[in-house]
């Protein structure tokens, strides 16, 4: 049974990747859920996270996982900055305005990035010992990346449901006007949510950089994956995004055993449109 062997080789890999995809999508879903903004600068921020790992690792010799801390902090600050400069003025405008405002941030980051870093590929030369079980090999970097993703998801869950600012975020997401009447400074909370969303994107990029080569444009592909995942998990449901990521990762692990790899995106995007049509609230429900 060659297919079973292929499946055993590719499925665990896909699932591990799924956690990281899920982490990226969580950032997108959080921003959508709190302020109904589709963040089109999501992809370039993932790319910035990748370059964060690259520079910290090659120039400063930092362990990529230790480097996550400054990358997360910078991602948070960058997101707050983007919110203040680009998003705040259009937060109540029609969707087109916020889509184009975040897209202009996308253009600015890609434009500057292309000028400074060119579009040639970069690679972080970092490996961890792999674990072998039968015909299955689990790459160390992917295993750790999946664990980090789970940790971040848990952290986000605790933050949203236990910490005070997290509860404010949920309140603002639920009903901004009512939250303001309760004395919550909604502008601050929106900026914080945007910052958290970009932080998650940057961290996922930093993790992806430890096992895939990348260039300044790589984020675009992960941005599209994030759309698919957030719709799978329910737009606006950050925790559901992790499950969406797992579904996508599983698909990416299963399909190559039966079809050519180039069919994977066809199935992903068709699924994406189908789910939007049949169940726009996502497989795991979310606010409607």
């Amino acid at each position, binding site marked *: 049974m060659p297919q079973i062997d292929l499946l055993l080789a590719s499925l665990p890999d896909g699932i591990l990747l799924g956690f990281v995809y899920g982490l990226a999508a969580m950032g997108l879903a959080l921003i959508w859920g709190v302020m109904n903004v*589709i963040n089109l600068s999501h992809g370039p921020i993932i790319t910035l996270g990748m370059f964060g790992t690259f520079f910290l690792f090659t120039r400063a010799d930092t362990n990529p996982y230790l480097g996550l801390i400054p990358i997360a902090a910078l991602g948070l600050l960058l997101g707050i900055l983007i919110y203040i400069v680009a998003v705040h003025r*259009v937060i109540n405008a029609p969707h087109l305005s916020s889509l184009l405002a975040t897209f202009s941030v996308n*253009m600015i980051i*890609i434009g500057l990035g292309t000028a400074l870093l060119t579009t040639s590929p970069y690679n972080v030369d970092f490996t961890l010992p792999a674990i072998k079980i039968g015909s299955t090999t689990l790459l160390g970097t992917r295993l750790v990346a999946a664990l980090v993703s789970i940790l971040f998801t848990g952290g986000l869950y605790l933050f949203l449901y236990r910490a005070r600012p997290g509860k404010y975020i949920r309140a603002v997401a639920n009903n901004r006007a009512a939250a303001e009447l309760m004395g919550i400074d909604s502008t601050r909370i929106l900026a914080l949510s945007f910052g958290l969303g970009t932080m998650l994107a940057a961290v996922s990029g930093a993790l992806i950089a430890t096992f895939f080569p990348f260039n300044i444009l790589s984020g675009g592909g992960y941005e599209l994956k994030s759309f698919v995942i957030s719709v799978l998990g329910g737009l606006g449901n950050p925790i559901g995004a992790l499950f969406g990521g797992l579904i996508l990762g599983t698909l990416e692990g299963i399909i190559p055993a039966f079809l050519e790899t180039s069919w994977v995106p066809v199935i992903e995007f068709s699924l994406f*449109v189908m789910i939007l049509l049949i169940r726009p609230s996502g497989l795991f429900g979310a606010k409607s």
Partner: protein
Amino acid sequence: MSASSSQPASAPLSPKRSDVQTGVLGTWRNPGIWLILLAIVVVGVWPVVTQRAATREVIFTVLLSVVLASSLNIILGYTGYVSFGHIVFFGLGGYVGMYLLSAQQASLWVAIPVGGLAAALLAFLLGKAILRLRGAYFALATIGVNEAMRTFINNFEPFGGPTGISLNLKIYQEYGGAAQALWLTYYLLVVFALGAIILSFMVKTSKFGLGLVAIREDEDAAEVMGVITPNAKTWAYVLSAILPGMVGVLFYFKNGNVEPGDAFRLHFSIELLVMVMLGGFGTVLGPVIGAAGYQRLRGFLLTSPLFKDIQLAVAGVLLLVIILFIPAGAVGWLRNRFPVLRRVLP
């Protein structure tokens, strides 16, 4: 809204509306539309007079954008549905046309209308399905459709898979050689640009267009007022797809080859949105001004020694400034600032 009006569907939706005019020529008495058409004719004839290929290429790009942006404006500006993957119609039309030209030895005169029909058919089927989604969900779905189409054609052998379709140079001999064929595509594009503007104006000033604007302002209210919204939206989508499908054939016929990555480039789709926003969405003139302005600006940034490397970033900053401070676009701003212009700027 007053319930006593005898014509509920054409009741004034906002005090700003003054587009519906009556008289001998009806809405065609508006001088603005004639000025736009005249401007397109003058710009279109210019390279024919000077016989310079370089000028022709610049104007070709601008007019192509005019057709695409004006078409997008029908669904985006009038109806208020953000079609993010509108380039799918351009790409699909181009692919169908190129397939007919190369594999079926069809003539360009067959390929162009069939390309348009293919795009219209896709829009009709999609319209039945995804136009039910509102707001950002629709925008996301159009991105998904574009990406699904791109990745599907990448695997679709009759359309050449990842390498796409290339035309044999012999095909151009039917049209008087490659140089003549370039001029032919140019003349046709000028006609299409005029057609796109006329279509946009006709939709805007018709009762159908008024229904679309009603949908944009408040879809539920429009439904109550008697606009059959699913049909109106679907036809608006079809009308916005047909010309992109036709100029897609024209463009790739001129280009000589078509590839999935080029034909369904999401970035170009977003550039079209930018053009409509720059000029002013929901107006006839806006997409024309926006397309010309955007392409000229891009040309300037690409050739300027100072901005060449960071042209994308500069364009991004400009876009952000416009979105934040002039959200109505150039024409919308003029119309709001000088109300007298509302009568003449369609």
